[in-house]
């Protein structure tokens, strides 16, 4: 598949042919990365995660409860990317309401990993990552609440970028956890990520949490030769599989060779990140998903006797198990008598996590970290929710702190499964993350291996 960069130099006629070709290949493919083949205007096709609103499309967040819903408006990212000639093209499968790490909880069935179809592509943006990795899309948009762009990118051997919180408008992204959600890019290269991010970033008056100041164009100003101070978190690495540790050591060597300075740091055990994340995210999710009541749109339960039954049945039938679990958890941590012990305490820990990052960033420009403790697991092996939550250990703190992070493939393990690592930057230093990532990408030569 041509890269986004290459697509920019094609004529409209050539682009049109490529679109037709992608459509044909994607329809014939059985990874189940695409769940819809909707198109918008002419232009360079970008695959959309099923939670980003595109006007007149059925946009369902991978859920039964939104069957029949047609979005009447465009997300801000859609408006922005269209100005740059990028157009929404097809809907990517995802974990229902972005709650999951494997894309196994979608109403549309599981998506397979193109490197090994017995394995998951990761999640929740698994459809986006699988499609880009399998050559079924030039590039895709996803959303990252606790690693949902970076982790599937790592599992599928592609580049996943989560911007600083507030850099990309959330207007039109079906909310999972408002204070953590951020639309991100899934691309074949770091440069493509910069191109697509440049197209969608910027202040949006429709999103009160959007950052007010503008930033320079990144793709045309990548500084691949700049040398940086990069922190490695030693106590993090020891919790990962040998494969991951090996890739990590390899990347550190390559970074040193490229002239970067490596410093060693420690961070608090990730179990606090996990606890904090699952309190904050579920509290916000419980309220964000309360609007799906079967009354105004989406799927409404039939044969109900009264209002209460309409609510109960529509929601019980419409939501999947993982979504229900998180709604229950969220309502529990917010309920009176428990609020202080859970939600309030989690907010305090969240500040401590942010402080801890700040301390490291006093000395380092960047942190290098694993994305997941292992390569993509086999389909059906992530049925224990607590085990699945633990696999988010490396990604969720970044969302809690609102930082920019980019996951890029480093090498493959002996089974041919890709291993990705992430570079984490200071808030609003998205540009530096791209500089470092471009440097690491060049040094590890993943594509030529």
């Amino acid at each position, binding site marked *: 598949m041509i890269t986004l960069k290459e697509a920019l130099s094609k004529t409209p006629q050539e682009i049109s042919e490529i679109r037709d070709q992608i459509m044909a290949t994607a329809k014939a493919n059985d990874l189940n990365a695409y769940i819809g083949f909707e198109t918008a205007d002419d232009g360079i096709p970008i695959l959309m995660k099923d939670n980003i*609103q595109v006007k007149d499309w059925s946009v369902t967040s991978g859920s039964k409860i939104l069957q029949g*819903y047609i979005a009447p408006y465009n997300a801000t990212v859609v408006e922005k990317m269209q100005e740059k000639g990028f157009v929404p093209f097809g809907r990517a499968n995802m974990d229902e309401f972005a709650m999951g790490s494997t894309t196994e909880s979608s109403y549309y069935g599981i998506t397979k990993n193109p490197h090994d179809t017995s394995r998951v592509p990761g999640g929740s943006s698994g459809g986006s990552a699988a499609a880009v990795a399998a050559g079924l899309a030039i590039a895709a948009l996803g959303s990252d609440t606790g690693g949902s762009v970076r982790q599937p990118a790592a599992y599928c051997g592609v580049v996943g970028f989560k911007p600083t919180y507030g850099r990309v408008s959330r207007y039109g992204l079906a909310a999972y956890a408002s204070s953590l959600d951020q639309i991100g890019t899934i691309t074949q290269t770091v440069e493509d990520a910069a191109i697509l991010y440049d197209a969608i970033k910027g202040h949006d008056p429709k999103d*009160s949490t959007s950052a007010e100041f503008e930033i320079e164009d990144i793709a045309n100003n990548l500084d691949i030769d700049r040398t940086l101070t990069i922190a490695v978190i030693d106590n993090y690495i020891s919790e990962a599989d040998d494969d991951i540790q090996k890739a990590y050591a390899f990347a550190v060597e390559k970074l040193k060779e490229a002239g970067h300075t490596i410093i060693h740091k420690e961070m608090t055990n990730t179990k606090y990140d996990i606890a904090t994340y699952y309190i904050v995210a579920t509290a916000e999710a*419980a309220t964000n998903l309360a*609007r799906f009541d079967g009354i*105004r749109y989406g799927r409404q339960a039939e044969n109900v006797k009264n*209002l209460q039954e309409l609510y109960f049945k529509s929601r019980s039938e419409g939501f999947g198990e993982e979504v229900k679990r998180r709604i229950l958890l969220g309502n529990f941590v917010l309920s009176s008598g428990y*609020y202080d012990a859970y939600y309030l305490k989690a907010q305090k820990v969240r500040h401590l996590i942010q402080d801890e990052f700040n301390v490291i960033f006093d000395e380092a420009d960047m942190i290098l970290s694993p994305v997941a403790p292992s390569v993509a697991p086999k389909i059906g092996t992530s049925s224990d929710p607590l085990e699945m939550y633990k696999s988010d250990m490396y990604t969720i703190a970044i969302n809690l702190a609102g930082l920019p992070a980019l996951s890029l493939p480093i090498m493959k393990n002996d089974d041919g499964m890709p291993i990705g690592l992430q570079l984490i930057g200071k808030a609003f230093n998205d540009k530096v993350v791209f500089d470092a990532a471009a440097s690491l990408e060049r040094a590890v030569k993943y594509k030529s291996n």
Partner: protein
Amino acid sequence: MFETVIGLEVHVQLNTETKIFCSCPTSFAAEQNSNTCPTCLALPGALPVLNLEAVKKAMNFGYAVKAEVNKRSIFNRKSYFYPDSPMAYQISQFDIPIVGKGALTIDFDDGSSKEIGITRAHLEADAGKNIHDGNISKVDLNRSGTPLLEIVSNPDMRSADEAVRYLKKLHSIVRYLDISDANMQEGSFRCDVNISIRPKGQEEFGTRVEIKNINSFKFVSAAIAYEVQRQTEAYEDGVYKQEVYQETRLWDVAKNITKSMRSKEDSADYRYFPDPDLRPVLTTDDMMREAQHIPELPDEKVARYIDELGIKRYDALVITAYKELSCYFEETISHGVAPKIAVTWITSELLGRLNKAGLSIENSPVDSATLGDLLVRVSDDTISGKGAKEALDYMFENKDRDIDVIIEKLDLVQMSDDGTILAIIDEILASNKDKVEEYRAGKEKLFGFFVGQTMKASRGSANPSKVNMLLKQRLS
């Protein structure tokens, strides 16, 4: 032997152009669900953006009641399922409202007054409306997202009279500030009453019962009276604990009783937490400067009317109770009418006629300029008071408003020329010589007879005070 304790929660719809979290108009829309957008319909992905006009109006109220206005306040999500609440949570302020402690003064007829504390006032979004149509229930979300200011009083009121005076004062303040239409019938000024009783002398409060959504001052009074009686009887019958418990009741207009309301949800745990879609509200210096522009409010007006215009306190309270009335009054005196005369004419003659016609001062058929013109003709002796009343009556029935034309048409011009009046007087005295003698001999009652005869001879057009004066001259 019992004391009533009342606190009030008033929901005031703010008269902003657009809704509090989206740019839909707040104006009346004929078609259901036409003033809506992804945000106030709670579609997936839609986000709220705070309307700063609503914040400024809330701040304006805060400054008007001398309250603390918080430089930083927070919007929370208040969760409950109901079809008129599209997000299934209301965005409202909880632990840090925009307006903190303040107070207002209520005045009594005997000249005394009392301060009622305001606990807080916070911003929130109004719900839509559920419409039940036989077997079908519909939801209209035109109102969904209209800004509300909920003003909570301290439990400082001790009677229905005090509660109504507080409400009327609050009502007039928001009208003077022009932050709300405050129309009770249309629901832009809604009142919940919290009420309890306790034996006189007891420190702690009794059990508080909330009566929701009462839409007139009269019903507030009636609901309080009913509830006091219900609670007192329960106490006296020894069943207070069983019959009076914390609950929400509704005022039944048809039966004149309060009755227990079916709760919206079994549990009243609203699971408040800060809305992550909205940043804390930070009031800027500019917003504060703007919000501190407070027009002259009723208390200040009353003081000024008494001190500078020489009006009686009672009249000043009547005139200032309604913004439109005090506007009318001030416009009338700006036409050169003496304030006392304007008060008399407005409160008795004009309001009397308006009441009879079922009209209010805003749609008075006689505007302040016309009344001013008319009263000036009284002051300059062109017409008499009686003539002016005739002219008022005429204008309530007819459309023309040129006072001088009306005076001519109704033949209201007064005879004020001394010579002409004296000629009539002399004729009357000449033809009643016997009575003149009786008068001079001490039968002073006959003075009225001479006045009457003179007026009659002038066919009512003689200026009565002139007639009096000239008669006295001639008879002395």
